[in-house]
């Protein structure tokens, strides 16, 4: 990458009102730092407290989803694939965008899950959240199947998502969560 290309990337991000972007490996400490940076930015922009809380809450869940699920079968893929995170200002709030590489076999299930979440009303989302909260199931990594439900409840908007085939074994999963005032 030459220096003019890097500037193009910078300008493109700037045009899209990206306030934070990161591509690489997500560690627990980095996750803490990203949250800290965003909190400071939201303070500096004098965002109303409800917006700050929602952006923070959704970002926590999005980052922790990436953190817990980006570790796909490391035997098949030599290097742990990096993740991408962006927080961008929109006309009436913020967009939180995340992307990570997932195993091709996971696409169908994940797609169905998110499509189903998008079909639910506010009340149905709450019911499913409560059912999942009380189901007693835990993954070894500490996840409880509540992340996307929480994101959908907090965002109050449809989750935008997509899958791009990466190679014969993996796909790139992208998620855009909108937070509005």
């Amino acid at each position: 990458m030459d220096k003019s290309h890097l500037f193009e990337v910078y300008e493109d991000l700037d045009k899209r009102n990206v306030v934070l972007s990161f591509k690489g490996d997500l560690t627990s400490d980095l996750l803490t730092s990203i949250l800290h940076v965003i909190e400071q930015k939201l303070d500096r922009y004098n965002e109303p407290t409800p917006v700050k809380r929602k952006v923070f809450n959704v970002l926590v869940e999005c980052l922790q989803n990436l953190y817990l699920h980006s570790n796909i079968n490391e035997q098949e893929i030599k290097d742990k694939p990096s993740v991408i995170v962006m927080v961008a200002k929109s006309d009436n709030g913020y967009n939180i965008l995340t992307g990570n590489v997932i195993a091709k076999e996971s696409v169908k299930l994940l797609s169905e899950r998110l499509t189903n979440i998008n079909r639910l009303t506010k009340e149905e989302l709450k019911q499913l959240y409560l059912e999942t909260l009380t189901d007693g199931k835990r993954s070894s990594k500490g996840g409880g199947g509540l992340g996307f439900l929480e994101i959908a409840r907090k965002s109050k908007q449809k989750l935008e998502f997509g899958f791009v085939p990466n190679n014969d074994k993996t796909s790139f999963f992208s998620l855009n969560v909108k937070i509005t005032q």
Partner: protein
Amino acid sequence: MENLIIKGEAKTPTIDFNYSNGELVISGRSIPENSIEFYKPIIEWLESLKVSDKDKIVLDIKLEYFNTSSSKCILDVFKKLEEIKGVGKDASIRWYYESDDEDMEEAGQDFSAIIKVPLELITVEEL
């Protein structure tokens, strides 16, 4: 029985469980990636409280943020309080939230609907 004190950090709450007066407080932020590990000693402490001679326990939840990994653990904490109440002790929860924090208010209502321990919602200007 000893008190349980854990200092809060960037992603974990302050735990101030006072055995002598039966006042237990969880405050700050609870957003660790894996909350099971963090909440383990808390659940264990509550288990010993169950068999102690303390007969009145009040748990104050004063959380600014909690993630979904923590929500199942918070439910586990509340379930322990149910057990404590089940052995004939007086156990109750006070759920504090900032007056403009609708999500935290709703979270308190959600928990209140699924647990069998009295949960009082208390609104404050600032936590």
